[in-house]
C-alpha cells in the first residue's frame, strides 16, 4: 500500500485532474448535467448583466405589472417572457436572481459546514478515545433530528435573512461531514504510512494538516456536491414555508410559494417556471455528483 501509486492518490496532481475531467466528459449524461450546471453558475454570477430587470429593486418593481401572462409587455416596455409574479416582478429575472441567492446560500453553508465538519472529524479520528466518543455523540444527537426541523427552529430564533439561513444550514449539515471524514480518517490511521509518519515525531498539527487531511478529503468532495443540492432543497423548503429569505428578495423557494396561491386562479407561471428551475438545478448537481463519485471511486467505475 505504501507505494508511489498510493502517494499519488494523496496529492492529486494535474494529471489526475485532467483524467477525471476526461472521464467526466466521455459520458453524455455527465456532459449535459455539467454544461447545465456551468450555465446555471455563470448566469447566477452574472445575474445583473443577464437579467432583463432587477427584481430586488423595489423602486422599479410595480404591482401594476402583477400577474402578467408569459410574453406580456410590462409597464416600462420590457417583455416578461415568463410572466410576472403577484408583486409585479419579471419571473425570468426573479429566477436568475433567486438562483443566485439559492446558490450563495447552498455553497456558503456547505463550505462552513465542511470546514467545521473536517475539524471535528479529523480531531475525533486522530485523538480517538474519549474525545472521539464525546464528539461523535454530539454528531449522533445532531443527526437524530430531521434537518428541516432543526433549520425551522433555528430560523424562528434567528429571524429572517440570507446570512441567517446560511448559519442555520451550516449547523444542520456539519455533523454529516464530521461523520464521513472521521470514517475516512480512521481508515487512513490504520495504514502503514501513517505509522511511519507517527514515528517521525512530527507535531500533531503537522500530521493532521499534511497527512491525515489530504488523504481523507476525497470522499468529502462527492458528499459536498450532493449536500449542495440538498441545501438548495432545504433552503427552498424554508423559504416556501416563509421563514427563509426576506419577501422582497425572493429565492427560488419563495418564488414558488409566492405563486402557489395563484395556481388555482390560472396564473401557473409564477410557480411553474421557478419550480422547473429548482428541479433542473438540483437534478444537474445530483447527476454530476453521482458521476464524480463513480469516477473517483474505482470500485464503482469498473
Amino acid at each position: 500500500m505504501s507505494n508511489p501509486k498510493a502517494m499519488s492518490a494523496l496529492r492529486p496532481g494535474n494529471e489526475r485532474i485532467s483524467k477525471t475531467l476526461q472521464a467526466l466528459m466521455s459520458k453524455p449524461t455527465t456532459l449535459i448535467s455539467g454544461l447545465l450546471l456551468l450555465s446555471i453558475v455563470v448566469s447566477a454570477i452574472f445575474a445583473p448583466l443577464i437579467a432583463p430587470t432587477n427584481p430586488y429593486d423595489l423602486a422599479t418593481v410595480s404591482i401594476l405589472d402583477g400577474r402578467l401572462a408569459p410574453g406580456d409587455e410590462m409597464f416600462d416596455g420590457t417583455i416578461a417572457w415568463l410572466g410576472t409574479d403577484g408583486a409585479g416582478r419579471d419571473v425570468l429575472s426573479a429566477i436568475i436572481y433567486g438562483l443566485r441567492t439559492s446558490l450563495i446560500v447552498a455553497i456558503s453553508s456547505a463550505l462552513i459546514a465542511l470546514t467545521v465538519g473536517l475539524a471535528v472529524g479529523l480531531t475525533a479520528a486522530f485523538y480517538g478515545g474519549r474525545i472521539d466518543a464525546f464528539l461523535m455523540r454530539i454528531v449522533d444527537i445532531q443527526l437524530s433530528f430531521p434537518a428541516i426541523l432543526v433549520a425551522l427552529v433555528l430560523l424562528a430564533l434567528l429571524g429572517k435573512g440570507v446570512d441567517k439561513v446560511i448559519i442555520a444550514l451550516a449547523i444542520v449539515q456539519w455533523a454529516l461531514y464530521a461523520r464521513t471524514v472521521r470514517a475516512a480518517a480512521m481508515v487512513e490511521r490504520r495504514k502503514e504510512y501513517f505509522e511511519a509518519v507517527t514515528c517521525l515525531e512530527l507535531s500533531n498539527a503537522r500530521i493532521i494538516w499534511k497527512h491525515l487531511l489530504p488523504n481523507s478529503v476525497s470522499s468529502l468532495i462527492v458528499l459536498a456536491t450532493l449536500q449542495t443540492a440538498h441545501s438548495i432543497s432545504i433552503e427552498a423548503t424554508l423559504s416556501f414555508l416563509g421563514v427563509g429569505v426576506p419577501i422582497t428578495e425572493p429565492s427560488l423557494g419563495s418564488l414558488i410559494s409566492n405563486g402557489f396561491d395563484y395556481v388555482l386562479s390560472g396564473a401557473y407561471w409564477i410557480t411553474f417556471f421557478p419550480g422547473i428551475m429548482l428541479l433542473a438545478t438540483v437534478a444537474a448537481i445530483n447527476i454530476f455528483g453521482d458521476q464524480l463519485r463513480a469516477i473517483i471511486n474505482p470500485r464503482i467505475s469498473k
Partner: protein
Amino acid sequence: MTKRTTIAMLAVVAAGVGLVGGAVSAQDLRVALAAEPTSMDPHYQNLTINNSMATQVYDALVLQDVNQNLIPGLAESWQPVDGTTWEFKLRSGVTFHNGAAFTAEDVVATMQRAANVPNSPSSFATFIKGKTFEIVDDLTLRVSTENPNPFTPNDMSRVAIIDSAFVDATTEDFNTGQAAFGTGPFTLTKWLPGDVIELKRNDGYWGAAVDWDNVTIRPIGDGTTRAAALIAGDVDFIERVGPADLPNLESRDGLSVFKSVSNRLLYMTLHLADDRMRPYVTDNDGNLIASPFQDIRVRQAVSVAINRQAIADRVMDGLSAPSGQFSPEGYIGYSANLKPDAYDPDRAKELLAEAGFSDGFKLTIHGPAGRYSNDTRILEAIAQMLSRIGIDTSVETMPASVFFKRFARGGPDDTPEFTVAMSGYANGSGEPSHPLRIFIHTRGNGYGPGNRNGYSNAEVDKLIEDGRASMDIAMGEKAFIQATETAMQEYALVPIHHEIATWAARDGVAYEHGALDSTFIHNIRSK
C-alpha cells in the same frame, strides 16, 4: 388535474345533485361556515363566532342591525333618567323556548351568571362590571353606573339573556342543549362539535319571522372546499369566499355572490415620538436618525405615496375598499369629510423635500404574516410605493403572535417596538368611541392602549373624553366625528383599506349584509 376539468366534473356532480335533490323542502337551509363556536354557552367566551351564533338562539336587551346600529330587542325602549342611570322598558308577552315568561328577573340573573362563568377565555364581565341593576317592576329595569356612561345600551347589546331558572347552569349544560333556551328566532336542536349545528324555527318569536323551518350548519375550514360544497349543491350558503374562487363562483349560473365593505380596517402607524428606536429608520449611510415621521409632511408623503386603488385591484382582487378613516360609509362614526388620500407620488416627493428629506432615508416596515387577507403582499406593495418616492424600504414579516407582542411591547422598557407597522382593526362592540379611545387618545389612564406611535393632541383628547362623559348620544357622536377628522388629518395613523366580506348562495337564497364580516343566519333570506 387542470382547473377546467375540475370545474367540469363539479358541474356534472352539481347537475346530478340538482336532479335528485329536487324534492328537498325549500324551507330547509344548509349552511357552511368557516369556523364553529367554541361553546353554545352564550356567556362562555366573548368571541365573534360565538356571539353571532348566540344571536340565533338568544336575544339581548338591545340588538344591533347589520351596521351595528342599536335597535330594540328584549327592551322596547331605553332612555337616561338621570346623569348616571338608564331605564330599559322591557317587551311584554315574550316567552323563552321552554315556555317560561321573560321578566326583569331574567335580566338580573343573566348578568349575574354572564360575569362569572368559570374558565372563560374572554369574559363578558367587561360589559357588566361597574353596573348596578335595579328591578322597578316586572317590565322595567334601571341600570346605573358610578360615572355617566352613554354606552350602557351598547354594553347591554353584548349580553344574551337566559331564563333565570338556568342561572346556575354550567357551560356543559348549554353545550348539550339542556339549558339552551333563549328567546331568539331559532331553537337549538343539536350540536355535534366539529360536525353539525341544527336549528329549528321558533314559531313564537316576538320579532320578524325567519324564512327557514330547519337550518343545518356545518363548519368547513378550507375556502376552496367550501366553494366546492356550494357548487356541488351540498350546501345552499357559504361565507368567506376566497379571492381565488370568486371569479369562478361569480361566473356560474345558479349561484350568486354577496359582497359588503366590512368594518375591518388595515392601517399603518408611523412613529411620532422623539426617542431613537431600534434601527428601523436610518439615513442613507445607515446612521440612526430620529423618526422623520414627527414631521406631518413626511406622514402625508407616505399616505399620498400609497396607491390604494392599485392595492385593491391588483393585490386584493377587488376585495378591498380604499379608506381614509376607521369607519366604512354608512357605519357609526363615519365622516363624510374624510376621503382616502389620492395617489400622487410627485406630491409625495415634494413633501419629503420640503421636510428636508429630498434624498429620502432607509426604513424597515413590519407586519404580521397571515393575519389579514394578503397582508404580506400589501406590505410588499407599500414597500414598492415608498421606494418610488425615495424612501429605501425593506419589509420584515413575522407570525401574528410574534408580531403583536413586539408591536405592543418589544422595545426598551416594554414600549412598542416598530417605527412603521401595518395592522388591522375592527370595531367588535359597535361602541362609536372605541377606536378613538384605543388608538387616538394620548396613552395613559386606561386610554390609548393601542396608541403605539405616541400621537397626542389635547384638543382631540378632550373631545373624546367629553363625548364619553355625556349621556347625550347625538352630541357625543358629533364630538367623536370631529375628533376623528382632526386625528386623520394629522395622520395619527394612515388608513389603507377596509376589507370586503363575501358570501355566496344558490339562487333563491339571499343575504342581508352590512359592515360585519360574520354571518347571521336570521339574515339569510329565501326569495
